[in-house]
């Protein structure tokens, strides 16, 4: 009996061959493993990962039809169902260089090449897990969102275990980008790259540049990475996004088309290609990409009703109105109970009917959409709102259009792209100038709320400012500035009157709604940091 044991480890084995699974299983049992679950495909693996907390996952890269191992890893990380503390090992059959390489935060802990024999398990798996143990306490803190503690532990570990430098740096990178400290992440990446070009660290630096909105630098670096690593798909994805930011949507589409050729099975990639092709009015590409996005997404939690809408709209552009209608009709059934999806379905149907020349049905769909809008309030995506307003304008429902547009503008008063889209919509409908009035009114209203709130704070009336922002946030849950201000008021109140659990939770909730918004990340992090500081003191 070996001293080293997997006795208390919860393990998942993913392989499409039943024989392979049972072989790996019996090897693991020989090392004391008792709790071993198995999956034969990526979809099932994702589900098991979502419902269990595994210590070790052995996942074959090649899983036949459906998702491959890298996609399983990426989706699990993206959905935050795979703790950093879990050891994820990619088992590979072919020469590893043929596989799709993941970005810095989508790397497995190790690759294990077949044949995996008992000897390999004994030597490699053991070392991989031992190594993971060193970084585990840091991972656990990051998983718990205790970033300050994690950072301290990470720095200590770096000086104690210089041999683990790269693992720790990579962990620290994850930490820094999670809390949005891009400048520190930049310094870290440059340290990693001091002696050698490591593709995933280079990509890490490129993503930092991207977050810092240094798009020319991002592009330059990515082109260099791709020149040296022709198959680094994640670099193509980011390059495409960068090119789009630089205003070159044609280059962006071309780049993504290359990535799709190499790796077609990604929902997000197909979706982005579809969106770019729509933008470039490349209807054939758009139809194919949107269809593939919809099909790949069928069983994925990453799917959106918008994938169906995009496909339907692409079909309309290619004069396939009847097919388009069928797709629009499927949305309601595919997204049961999702009000935003229902609204999008009605809006989509109305545009398809318009294209087919059936104004009666088109208007009926607009009315159905308006009922939904009335009922479920203004918390819909800006895209859906603008599309609905457009249809309203067409059927002489100007008043309804104005209401919707105002809501959209209030929720997105700092988003130039959304405001520009509103302008365009009105101009195309022959109401130029009218949008400006609506937008100005909306922006003014928000500014007034914010000013009033700040005034209350300055006068020391913090409780009143909280009430104000709370009310505003309830009416405009998608407005980032208001959410931030609501959180900040709570923090000020706690500084003044002392902390309590309820206030901390309220603050966290407001901050959580804006955690993915790049443009306000710095402010978010400041508030998040003081909130954590207060939270730590109260416990």
């Amino acid at each position, binding site marked *: 009996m070996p001293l080293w044991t997997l006795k208390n480890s919860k393990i998942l084995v993913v392989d499409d061959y039943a024989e392979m699974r049972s072989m790996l299983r019996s090897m693991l049992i020989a090392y004391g493993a008792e709790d071993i679950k198995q999956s034969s495909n990526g979809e099932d693996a994702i589900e098991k990962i979502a419902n269990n907390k595994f210590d070790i996952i052995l996942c074959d890269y090649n899983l036949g039809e459906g998702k491959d191992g890298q996609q399983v890893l990426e989706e699990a990380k993206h959905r935050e169902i795979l703790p950093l503390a879990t050891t994820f090992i990619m088992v590979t059959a072919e020469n590893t260089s043929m596989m799709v390489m993941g970005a810095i935060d989508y790397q497995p802990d190790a690759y294990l090449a077949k044949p995996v024999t008992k000897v390999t398990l004994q030597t490699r798996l053991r070392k991989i897990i031992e190594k993971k143990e060193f970084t585990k306490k840091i991972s656990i803190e990051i998983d718990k969102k205790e970033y300050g503690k994690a950072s301290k532990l990470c720095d200590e570990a770096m000086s104690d275990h210089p041999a683990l430098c790269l693992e720790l740096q990579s962990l620290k990178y994850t930490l820094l980008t999670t809390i949005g400290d891009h400048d520190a992440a930049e310094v870290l990446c440059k340290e990693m790259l001091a002696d050698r070009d*490591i593709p995933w660290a280079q990509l890490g630096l490129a993503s930092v540049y991207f977050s810092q909105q240094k798009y020319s630098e991002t592009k330059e670096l990515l082109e260099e990475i791709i020149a040296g690593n022709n198959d*680094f798909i994640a670099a193509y994805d980011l390059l495409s996004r960068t090119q789009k930011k630089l205003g070159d949507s044609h280059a962006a589409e071309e780049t993504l088309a290359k990535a799709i050729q190499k790796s077609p099975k990604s929902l997000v990639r197909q979706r982005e290609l579809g969106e770019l092709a729509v933008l470039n009015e490349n209807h054939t590409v758009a139809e194919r990409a949107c269809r593939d996005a919809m099909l790949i997404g069928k069983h994925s939690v990453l799917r959106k009703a918008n994938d169906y809408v995009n496909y339907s709209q692409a079909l309309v552009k290619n004069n396939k109105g009847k097919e388009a209608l069928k797709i629009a009709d499927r949305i309601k059934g595919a997204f049961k109970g999702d009000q935003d999806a229902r609204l999008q379905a009605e809006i989509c149907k109305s545009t398809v009917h318009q294209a087919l020349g059936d104004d009666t049905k088109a208007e009926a769909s607009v009315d159905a959409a308006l009922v939904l809008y009335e009922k479920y309030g203004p918390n819909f995506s800006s895209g859906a709102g603008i599309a609905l307003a457009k249809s309203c304008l067409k059927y002489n429902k100007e008043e309804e259009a104005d209401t919707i547009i105002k809501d959209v503008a209030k929720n997105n008063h700092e988003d130039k792209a959304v405001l520009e889209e509103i302008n365009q919509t009105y101009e195309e409908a022959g109401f130029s100038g009218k949008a400006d009035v609506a937008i100005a009114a909306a922006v003014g209203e928000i500014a007034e709320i914010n000013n009033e709130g700040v005034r209350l704070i300055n006068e020391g009336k913090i409780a009143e400012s909280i009430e104000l922002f709370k009310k505003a946030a309830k009416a405009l849950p998608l407005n980032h500035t208001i959410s931030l201000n609501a959180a900040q008021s709570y923090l000020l109140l706690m500084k003044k009157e002392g902390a309590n659990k309820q206030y901390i939770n309220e603050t966290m909730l407001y901050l959580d709604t804006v955690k993915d918004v790049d443009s306000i990340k710095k402010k978010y992090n400041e508030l998040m940091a003081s909130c954590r500081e207060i939270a730590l003191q109260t416990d």
Partner: protein
Amino acid sequence: MSNAEPPIKLDFSAIMASSVHDMKNSIQLLLGTLDEVVDELPAEAKSHAKILRAEAEGRRINDQLIQLLTLYKAGNTKQSLRLSEHSVNEFLEELHIENHELLSLRGIELSITCDEELAWFFDRELLKGVINNLITNAQQYTKNKIELNASLCDKKLLFSVDDNGPGYPDAMLKCYGTPHEIIPDKNSTETGGTGLGLFFSATIAHLHRNRKECGYLQTSNNGIDGGARCTISLP
């Protein structure tokens, strides 16, 4: 009826990839099953020469497959490696575990010299193929010793496989900067083999790059007691 059928166009790289994938799974099952058979044997039979031989041949088929696929790709497309940082000592220990029993049955002692803290960037699977290849070569010529060394020299990792045999013939003593300098010769008598293994090793070394520098392979007679030494230098 007399018309010749048009030749079928094949995407050979796809066929190759899919065949290698299947074969590697077969090797996995083969070696795994062998492991299970060995488990059922009494302790004294576990290290039986025939069993060790079967295991070694299974691994050899695997190495050959990697070699085949790598050389095919090197000749056809731009090949990129999967460079990650590995503990060099661990890597050599793994090779030692896989090889030493069979070698010792032939009276050959396999040893490792490596700093335990040493870590470096390389493509683990490919480099394993390379070192296994060099060990296979060495065991044909050595008297009774093979040594695996790894050390850092001038910001490069040097792997060497040394033996205490007669050493390389003069014509083979050289630094192979690019694989093109070794052309596999099917009738080569001086190497005793096809030279393919050395070609593969030099190719893999050359594919390892950092900034502007490339890896290389060097043969010398600085092995044990003037025996052969094959060095792989990785930037």
